[in-house]
């Protein structure tokens, strides 16, 4: 895929997506009827369906498990602490198509993360500007992702961040979380394509802690949005724990290389 070179990926409601011809796009479905229709007739250019508010609808997931197309799904949880057990409804669907679960890092999200991981569902955690409670849970989630051998599927943003901090070609958190408007044109945000660069430049100019932050390159001011006064102390601890894991993996690999050479 070369989204970065072309038009950004559009996120469209089912109604707006009808007849859309301007390149790749994601369709947001919010009713069983919309879901069934886009599963049945996935128009060219549809990259995936963003499924909102349908997790409790057993009939919708019966339809999704019928495999009429291979169209991937991004299932959005808005309140993971109460919705988590509904993830069992995705068991059949994930056999016939790729299914990812996205959820805010709201208190109680660990339940959904644990269950999603046990069902081998990739997860995208949306941290926003995490509260103290959410930060504690994010630390628990990072430990779960990094150290629990039962976790077999990627948990974003940890997964991409670990790779970036381990030396892989790195994106920013905006990109890892699919919020960089250069690539992801989410309608609700309506940010200019150079939003991230301008946002970071503004923060540095205003003397925000980003100016001297060791995570500046990968974070690019992610945690300073929308409130530029957000205190990043807890976030830095979280990033530090992932950096430590990346360093440890790097050391292990180096010693393995030495042992086998």
């Amino acid at each position, binding site marked *: *895929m070369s*989204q*970065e070179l072309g038009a950004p*990926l559009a996120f469209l409601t089912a109604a707006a997506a009808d007849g859309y011809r301007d390149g790749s796009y994601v369709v947001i479905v919010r009713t069983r009827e919309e879901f069934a229709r886009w599963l049945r007739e996935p128009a060219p250019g549809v*990259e*995936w369906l963003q499924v909102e508010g349908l997790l409790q609808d*057993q*009939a919708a997931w*019966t339809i999704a*498990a*019928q*495999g*009429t197309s291979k169209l*991937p799904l*991004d*299932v959005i949880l808005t309140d993971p602490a109460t919705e*988590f*057990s*509904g993830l*069992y409804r995705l*068991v*059949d669907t994930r*056999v*016939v*198509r*790729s*299914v*990812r679960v996205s959820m805010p890092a709201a208190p109680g999200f660990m*339940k959904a993360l*644990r*269950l999603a*991981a*046990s*069902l*081998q569902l*990739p997860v*995208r955690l949306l941290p926003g500007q995490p509260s103290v409670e959410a930060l504690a849970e994010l630390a628990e989630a990072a430990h779960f992702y990094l150290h629990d*051998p*039962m976790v077999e599927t*990627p948990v*974003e943003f940890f*997964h*991409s961040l*670990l*790779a*970036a901090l*381990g030396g*892989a*070609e*790195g*994106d920013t958190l905006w*990109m*890892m979380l*699919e919020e960089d408007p250069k*690539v*992801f044109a989410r309608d609700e945000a309506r940010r200019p394509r150079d939003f991230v660069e301008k946002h970071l430049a503004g923060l540095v100019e205003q003397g925000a802690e980003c100016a001297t932050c060791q995570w500046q390159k990968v974070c690019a001011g992610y945690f300073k949005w929308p409130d530029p006064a957000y205190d990043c102390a807890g976030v830095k601890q979280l990033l530090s724990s992932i950096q430590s894991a990346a360093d440890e*993996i790097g050391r292990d*690999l180096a010693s*393995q290389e030495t042992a*086998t050479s």
Partner: protein
Amino acid sequence: MSDRVFSVILLPTAECNVACDYCFEHKEPHRLSMAMLPLLTRQLLDHLEHEGIKECEIYWQGGEAMIMGPAWFAEAGRLMDAAAAARGRRFKHYLQTNLISYSPAWNDVLRTMFGSSLGTSMDYPNLHRKLFAGGAEAYTRTWTERLHEAVGAGIEVGVIAVLHRGSLEAGPDRFYRYFTEDLGLKSFQVNTPFPGGPAKAVEADFDLDKGALAQFLAGLFDIWMERGHANGVALGPFDALIHHFTGAPARLPCIWKENCSNQFISVDSKGTVAQCDCWVTSYPESFFGNVFRDASLTEMLRTSPARQQFVERPKHLVEHEDCLQCRYLSICHGGCPVRTYSALGTMLAKDPYCEVYKAVFGRAETHGRTLLRRRLLNGAVKPAFHHAPARPAAAAVP
């Protein structure tokens, strides 16, 4: 068409030719008639078509399936396979039998319909599987003869052993040697017992101390890893667990599936549909419907209140039990509904063998890690750094 597989445990008869003490099945002299088979087949194919599923596994058992005779099976297989092929589907047939009435007359149908393999059962020591005349000793003698005849005819035989107090008293070493050395088997599996159906005195022999059972299974696991694993002996469910813990594709037994209600049903000779053979033979209150009377199997499964309990069980367990905190949730999901129901009178609780399973999973994890380390040191596998998935849609996205 999807990669999902739907399985049917099909009981062509409830009749049986032996008299095992612990059998919980209601043995009626009723057989699936060839006249009804097209209707059953059509219902199954309609359901597969509706769900977009290409393949259906049919597990023929009973009662005693061989009572139907090889000619009946040959005709049933021909009829079902032709109907499936005409609709672009496929049936894959498996046979579970007590082997007592096996003879060379079965070899043709075993080769053509069942891929030259079958499943059977034997315990060690055999105290409870009995012939009507001659008891357990005669059963063991006859079964062993049939086993060797079948193996001699090129039939691959897998054996299921149900553990009882005598097994635990004999110990894992003797138990393992019975199946691998005395019988010369290369494939067998151990099942935990459960008291299906009406209560019987013999069930006390199967009410095993969970600690002793866990110890037995851990010991058996160690023995298999030491002597059998690298030498081509398959011992279920340990082999599937080792696959899982070494990153290989693993087909775990139904008791540990995310939700067995999604994956199979059982149908008896009268068309009764329930979750599995244990339910269809023992618990009328849990029947989903009747495939000969209901207009649509799909609709029956969608609307059955009894089935809804199975569908909702895993959700209930992660909400109300401690399963969500368990490190083995991904390979257990609260265990088997029928083991739970038969012990507790409700399926909305975790499997009473929870602690036994944890002991087995722990053993599997330890052995799996040892194997991975060994492979790593031998250079078979080189660790790879996780790379960030490509953006935007190739991998990170759903």
